[in-house]
């Protein structure tokens, strides 16, 4: 059922060419219905006042971070400004480095599962899935149908909570003093309650196991989930109305931090940032894993690639996730098998070889590359973290804008330092 149309049917800008994402994009077509017509200019051309006839100005170097309220953790931006205009920006990271990959190579495969929770601590379920898939590929473990449904359900819930939180933080960075954040967190709490019900933990879920999930959904889970699905559209609509009707918010978001398509592809950016730039690349469609080929959902794309497009893409993704969850609720009772493959050993000793598994995490392509030498510990453990790779074009996105825009652009990339530095 890989026939979803683009949920944000926008024409690609002239001169950009047809989408050229790797694999599986047939069947995705775009309709000629522009959502956005014009863009405000927010970037200053010829930003430096280097005319010797004018009075002398000095460039100022500022360290935004590592202790700064809006760098989403310990992240440093070495910014060179001329007055308020950015002329150069260098992202500096590594302050939260905790040797994740090396530690993982000292642990057994199962011991690493809780470590993956701490990568992107907002989306522990998504991290679990990517890691479990990599190990299953390596060891050749089958996953029952019901377990796959539960996994997809959890990851889609994660996507909703991540986007609700990310948009809240972004608007908070714009100076709206936590109002939106508080409402986003309220929705997030409801989903965390569901996680707690299923896994016993709210954030560090550690719910997935090789061959399934650690325990089946409790009986009170489904009624609560249905309640959530009934209440959610109102929240998403409210958020979208805020974005589309708040003049100041539009002024701060439109035309800011434009990431052109070519640049995005060249930096191998993924996730909502890439889709905001107009590339309809979503691993759930491009290389359907788990049971995603059974669901009907759309991939939203933007047209300009600015902060506002990333906003809209995230909002639409929340709606699409809700659609997927509704289909799961329908199909789950008929799914075969239990919550875990009873023959799957947890203390795996995979045969010699390597495996790479990737999923569409809420932030982009999350991949785990594992090399096994036949021992119970991975020989090599590598994480392809979307936050880290999405952060690399930050300097190009910020150059020419104002100091105030930097935090907005950073917020629109949606990073978690736990995943950037590992």
């Amino acid at each position, binding site marked *: 059922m890989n026939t979803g149309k683009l949920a944000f049917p926008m024409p690609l800008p002239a001169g950009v060419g047809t989408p050229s994402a790797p694999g599986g994009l047939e069947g995705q077509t775009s309709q000629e219905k522009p959502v956005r017509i014009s863009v405000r200019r927010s970037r200053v051309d010829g930003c430096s006042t280097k005319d010797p006839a004018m009075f002398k100005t000095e460039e100022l170097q500022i360290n935004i971070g590592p202790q700064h*309220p809006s760098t989403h953790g310990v992240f440093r931006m070495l910014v060179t400004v001329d007055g*308020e205009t950015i002329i150069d920006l260098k992202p500096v990271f590594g302050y939260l480095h905790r040797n994740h990959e090396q530690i993982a190579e000292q642990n057994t495969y199962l011991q690493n599962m809780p470590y993956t929770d701490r990568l992107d601590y907002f989306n522990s379920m998504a991290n679990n899935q990517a890691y479990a898939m990599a190990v299953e590929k390596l060891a050749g473990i089958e996953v029952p149908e019901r377990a796959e449904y539960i996994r997809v359900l959890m990851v889609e819930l994660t996507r909703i909570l991540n986007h609700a939180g990310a948009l809240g933080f972004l608007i908070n960075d714009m*100076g709206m*003093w936590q109002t939106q954040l*508080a409402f986003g967190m309220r929705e997030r709490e409801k989903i965390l309650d569901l996680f707690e019900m299923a896994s016993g933990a709210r954030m560090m879920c550690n719910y997935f196991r090789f061959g399934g999930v650690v325990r089946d959904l409790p009986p009170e889970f489904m009624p609560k989930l249905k309640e959530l699905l009934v209440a959610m559209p109102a929240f998403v609509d409210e958020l979208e109305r805020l974005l589309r009707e708040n003049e100041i918010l539009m002024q*701060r978001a439109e035309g800011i931090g434009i990431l*052109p398509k070519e640049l995005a592809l060249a930096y191998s950016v993924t996730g909502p940032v890439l889709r905001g730039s107009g590339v309809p690349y979503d691993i759930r469609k491009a290389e359907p894993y788990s049971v995603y080929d059974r669901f009907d959902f759309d991939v939203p794309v933007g047209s*300009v690639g600015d902060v506002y497009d990333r906003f809209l893409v995230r909002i639409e993704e929340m709606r699409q996730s809700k659609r997927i969850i509704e289909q799961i609720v329908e199909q789950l009772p008929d799914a075969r098998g239990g919550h875990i493959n009873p023959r799957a050993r947890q203390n795996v000793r995979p045969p010699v070889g390597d495996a790479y598994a990737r999923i569409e995490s809420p932030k982009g392509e999350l991949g785990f590359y594992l090399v096994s030498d036949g021992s119970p510990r991975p020989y090599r453990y590598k994480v392809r973290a979307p936050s880290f790779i999405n952060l690399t074009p930050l300097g190009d996105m910020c150059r020419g804008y104002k100091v*105030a825009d930097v*935090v907005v652009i950073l917020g629109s990339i949606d990073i978690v330092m736990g995943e950037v530095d590992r």
Partner: protein
Amino acid sequence: MYDIVNGLINTTFGWNWPGWVIALISHLLVTTLLFAIAPFQMLFLTYYERRAIARMQDRIGPNRVGPAGLLQPIADGVKMFTKEDIVPAAADRWVHFLAPCVVVAPTMLMFAVLPWGPGMVPVDLNVGLLFFFAISSISAVGLLMAGLASSNKFALLGAMRAVAQMVSYEIPAVLSLLAVVMLTGTLSIVQLIEAQAGLFISSADVPGVPDLGLGWFIFTPVGLLAFIVFFIAALAEGERTPFDIPEADSEIVAGYMTEYSGMKFGLFYLAQYVLNFLLCAIAAVIFFGGWQGPGVGWLYDRAISPANPDGNWVFNLLAGFLGVFYLLAKTYAFFFVMVWLRGAFPRLRVDQLMDFGWKFLIPLTLVNIVSAAIWVALLRWGPEQGITFTQNWTPILRWGVAFAVTLAVNIVAYIALARIFAASQAEQGRIDLDEYRDTLTATLR
């Protein structure tokens, strides 16, 4: 105050003290009161803001210290006092020390001309309004001192933003008040309030209607437009969202306050909230009649006043209470709007702020001054000034024509200026996306 003290001591008690003693006593009383009131306002406003914004954000707000959290601001004050006062090693010690004083002192001085109730004004300056805004500009110097002396880049950026913003938005604020000054022909805040007695229908009140104290300038087209502009400018002067750019916490940490701690930081906070209170109060005074409201005039007619030395001091108390109640109700209502905006809007960017102030607000106030002149000409001027066609009109007709003409001028001006502003923004804003992409992707090759 002088009248009340004089009335109490010399008339009621019959002690016959000399005038200078009475003046001294009354001034000391007033200063003591004001120095108690100003920090109290700050304490109350912080509590009020935190509770109100908590409601908007689906929270409860401070609720642990005292009943319903009412003592929270006092606990915060104690915390401020007990914190270590840190001066950065590279800072200019004296300027760093003086800056909070330079910021706080003007805001305290501004209380001197604020009338609280009928006959309750510390100093009735004949240029009170001018004094108010002249004094308020001084705090910009203090902000720059703070930013420069801290030798911190965020503080410097914040101070530059603060000064640019205050200087730019002082112009629309003062120009919008100028329109009201033209309507009344006075700069004295007391007289401005007195001009708002009765009903705002012509210079003569409608016969048979008691003094309701509802002749507020907000009910005229000139006053309405002036109020809107003034309130926006007041948001910028008081550094409130969406204009809280100088202390944008997500961008430049805390702006000019970054390197301050302990009570010096508290003083900046105090100055800011007192300034917000004063700006709300002056908006209430100039456009919403200040203490004017139904009942105050009637009570004050029976009280001790220069016009009526034989009145009863009980009526002074009653009129004072009612007047202060009206003033504070209006002021807190405006402050609520400020809190509301803070909960609902992100902040603008510096260039957007400047564009809005210089390209939209200032032209709008200039047009408003023209319509204020039309209002005065139609309502007051006669043959002596060379206007003869209004000679035989009744006051009501004159008022009606003036209302209609100024309303039309203001609405046309608003729409036209908004269009021009939007067009200029759009002109600036149209990006050739292809060209834009080329310049960006050029960095790849």
